């Protein structure tokens, strides 16, 4: 039995703030650039070429973006699959961020597809090509976006009077979607790594390995846990909301991340040793540097979270989570772009317009998140004493 009565509640507050206005402007710029791409083609906005047919829109918006959006997946795993009800207060905010991360990731794939009007062919049996890792990723991501919104729907249903009678029915069947919501990310987050296996020698040996699916999945789960910590701490500052009652769970999440990262690094280096590529860690120029930065970032939560005092402090949790998120993001960026070499003469660095689209999509996510948590019952409202509230507001 939980020690205090809890309820989801909208946070309320103003929608038009400096943050939301800046986000809206960035999102509008991105919308304009995407319109330009639709009229003139990918080359008018991006620096994509036939040596680098995939750029930052795939590496960030899809591969890194959906890993950042694994909070809902990670929390569903501990809360519903391992049956740890204590994490329940963290589930809905995590789910919401996942909804936006995945939905906008899915939308940005459409803009990256050269022949987007044929995208529905993925669902046509005669065209389906199950040998393609891309086919599996596409199908899984599409279904998961639906599943995420269904998982989140109780928050919306309770706010729409016409739908309220169905709330009970929805909650009765929700467990099936929770299960799907654990299966689908397991499949596609690992497959995002498998996407690179077929590229063979074109991916540098520091990243090319048959273990890509395992390394991608484990780091995605940890990025999911870390984004929950990140959002809780950041949200407590941004929304002036106490997370006193969530701290014990966040500290335990830090422990999970630490354990996973130890296993991850053992696998990463074990794999390099088995493949006889350990030397590449030091003799691959820029790639060596990028690899080593990754390792330092991944090792940060291991070191930091080994001290109880760091796991119990917002600062310690925040630094560890951010290092984990940056490590996971860099790993993906490296694997998809830095490690890729299709032959001499090809170069790629995203154009300003290309980057503005990526920033605009992040801004849209932040904006929608703020609007939703202010208007819908997403966060838990703990019964707080006047002192708690005063203390929270001062920070």
């Amino acid at each position, binding site marked *: 039995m939980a020690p205090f009565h809890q309820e989801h509640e909208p946070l309320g507050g103003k929608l038009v703030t400096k943050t939301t206005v800046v986000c809206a402007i960035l999102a509008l710029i991105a919308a304009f650039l995407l319109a330009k791409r639709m009229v003139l083609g990918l080359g008018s906005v991006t620096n994509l070429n036939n040596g680098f047919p995939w750029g930052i829109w795939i590496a960030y918006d899809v591969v890194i973006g959906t890993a950042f959006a694994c909070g809902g997946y990670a929390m569903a795993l501990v809360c519903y699959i391992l049956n740890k*009800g204590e994490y329940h207060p963290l589930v809905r905010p995590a789910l919401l961020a996942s909804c936006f991360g995945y939905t906008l990731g899915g939308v940005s794939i459409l803009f990256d597809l050269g022949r987007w009007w*044929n995208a529905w062919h993925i669902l046509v049996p005669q065209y389906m090509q199950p040998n393609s890792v891309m086919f599996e990723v596409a199908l899984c991501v599409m279904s998961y976006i639906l599943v995420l919104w269904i998982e989140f729907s109780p928050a919306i249903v309770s706010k729409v009077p016409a739908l309220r009678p169905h709330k009970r029915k929805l909650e009765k069947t929700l467990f099936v979607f929770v299960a799907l919501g654990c299966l689908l990310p397991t499949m596609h987050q690992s497959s995002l790594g*498998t996407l690179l296996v077929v590229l063979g020698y074109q991916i540098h040996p520091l990243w090319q390995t048959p273990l890509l699916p395992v390394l991608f999945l484990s780091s995605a789960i940890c990025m999911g846990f870390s984004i929950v910590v990140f959002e809780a701490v950041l949200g407590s500052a941004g929304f002036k909301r106490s997370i006193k009652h969530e701290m014990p769970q966040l500290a335990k999440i830090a422990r999970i991340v630490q354990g996973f990262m130890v296993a991850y690094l053992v696998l990463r280096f074990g794999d390099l040793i088995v493949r006889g590529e350990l030397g590449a860690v030091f003799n691959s120029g820029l790639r060596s540097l990028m690899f080593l930065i990754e390792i330092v970032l991944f090792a940060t939560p291991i070191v930091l979270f080994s001290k109880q005092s760091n796991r119990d402090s917002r600062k310690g949790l925040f630094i560890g989570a951010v290092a984990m998120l940056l490590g996971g993001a860099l790993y993906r960026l490296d694997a998809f772009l830095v490690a890729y070499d299709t032959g001499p003469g090809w170069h790629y660095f995203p154009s300003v317009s290309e980057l503005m689209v990526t920033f605009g999509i992040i801004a849209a996510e932040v904006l929608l998140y703020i609007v939703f948590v202010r208007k819908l019952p997403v966060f838990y409202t703990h019964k707080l004493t006047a002192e708690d509230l005063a203390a929270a507001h001062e920070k």
Partner: protein
Amino acid sequence: MAVNRRDFLKGAAGGGAALATAAVATAPAQARENKPMPPNAVGLLYDSTLCIGCKACVAGCKEANDLPPDFNTAEQLWDTPIDIGPKTFNVIKLYASGTAEHKDQEENGFAFVKKSCMHCVDPSCVSVCPVSAMTKDPQTGIVGYDPDICIGCRYCVLSCPFGVPQAEYDTPTPKIKKCEMCRHRQAEGKIPACAEVCPTGATVFGPIAAIDAEIARRRAMVPGETATFERRTLGSGDVHEKAAPKYLEHVYGEKEVGGTQFRFMSSVEFEKLGMPALRDKSYPSDSEGIQHTLYSGMIAPAVVFAGLVWAAKRASHVEDEHPEE
């Protein structure tokens, strides 16, 4: 909520164990073999020693495939492709070293290179295409493309070990462009344009069996002795005579990534000619091996899903005892 709170260190250790299990599960991933040569496979044989660099094949290909000129000079007066691209399906390149005096010689010599689609026996582009827009003909083995199916994801461009498929970026309706061995001409009983127009038989067309036999015949030639070479197709009877060159034993495309239907003979090492040194095992055999191991009959996902449903049902039951509202 009388759930036994286990020590979370245990959870973390469990995570490690799960990772290790997953790592072992992907280990037998090398299961799939290279795909076999299609029964009625056709191909092209390019012999660098016969090539005179006239680029008739480049012009012939453009005409046969209705491709525009590929300008790379300021005045834009003539077709100057620097490599294959969306407007150019095959090019002739020149290797030159030192004084470049002697044909087909590595030092102080030169040699020609033809680059176009290799028509892999086990092609990456076909394996990665999510919608079957890129296909390998089950009879002829020609790797073809259908823009009406393609979604434009460019995974084929990314995955090809030879960098062959080329996407367009300057149009809102881009297509993937590559050599399809003039399958539209073959449907009319003609042969690929590059072989049709080649004046020296440097590029010849024929069934893979005939190409294999021809490669064996050329390998057995005594360098310097007069030999015969056919033009256009093997068995055309249109023969010319020339002193046999000193071929490399290595014929590019016999084994590379599971073999290709475009074969390449030369006197100069292929790496000098810009051809990548590739292993014998195809890359799709790795990726499909992993996918088929994990998703064979969707049994593993189904079992995992059943477990997840059971666990989620159990957890939702716990919540029922403490309804929120």
